[in-house]
């Protein structure tokens, strides 16, 4: 366990700078949010559009994938490289995603096509 925490006092200039940074960052988050909403709209619209399911399904899955990456990297701050052990965290998350993907493939192919 750590000993008492070592707290640094930021200089006024540093503090102002950080504050401006984080404000700019928050603006970026709002843009990200707008993109997510937009992607959701497209996904719902695509389904209602009446195109062939074989075309729509890959599209909506792709849109979902993009949304997830946005959530992870923007909202959940994975893009912040100063996060403690962020590389290891990414490794675990993407391993999980990969394993999840194999389940999908296995269950959609071998369970109903095999037998």
């Amino acid at each position, binding site marked *: *366990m*750590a000993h*008492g*925490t070592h*707290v*640094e*006092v*930021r200089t*006024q200039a540093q*503090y102002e700078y*950080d*504050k401006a940074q*984080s404000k700019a*960052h*928050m603006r970026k*988050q*709002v843009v990200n*949010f707008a993109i*997510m*909403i937009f992607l*959701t709209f497209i*996904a*719902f619209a695509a*389904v*209602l559009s009446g195109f062939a*399911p074989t075309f*729509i*399904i890959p599209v*909506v*899955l792709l*849109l*979902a994938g993009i*949304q*997830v990456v946005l*959530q*992870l990297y923007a*909202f*959940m701050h994975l893009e912040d490289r*100063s*996060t*403690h*052990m962020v590389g*290891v*965290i990414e490794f*675990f*998350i993407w*391993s*999980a*995603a990969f*394993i*999840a*993907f194999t*389940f*999908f493939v*296995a*269950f*959609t192919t071998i*369970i*109903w096509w095999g037998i």
Partner: protein
Amino acid sequence: MDINQKFTPQTWPKHPEQATQEGKNKLVGLWIFLASDTVLFASVFATYIALKDHGPAGMEFAAKDLYELPLAFIMTMLLLTSSLTSVYAMYHMKNYNFNGVRTWMGITVLLGLGFLGLEIYEFQHYVHIGFGYTQSAFSSAFFTLVGMHGLHVIIGLIWITGLITRNSGRGLNLYNAPKFFAASLYWHFIDVVWVFIFTVVYLMGVLG
């Protein structure tokens, strides 16, 4: 770490959630847990896909006729927005503004409650028209998958509400900052799962 240590916006660290060893542990731990939870959801998702539209001979309900997109759309919007509001809360946490944290987390909870209310309404409606849990393999899989997500929402709501109540009297410190941050990560994760639910269950369900 001293829980009563007082800060000013200037002495408040840039990354309050990771300023202590406990905070670092907590965040890495939560991420690792989320990786595990992803696989849990994947198992149930895969089962749902395999059992979609399967039931006893003469089953009346198929995904195509069952789901209603407008409701799913509203639910999606509520949850997505709540994701943004919890980002706001974290923004204020970094600026050592406890009132901001409290307000935005509060809004997040309200949006979450709205989502949950709609979900309960939806379930209740299905049961009412005869699509109950024990009806068919498909119904069991649907309720289990979506219900499991709903359970996560409930846990998230209790967690966030608890944090706000517990800390309302004492403001931000390095002991509770990682807790708020962890709760918000968890809340985002709920949204991530929902993205797949509305895509795989509702959108692909309506497509047949």
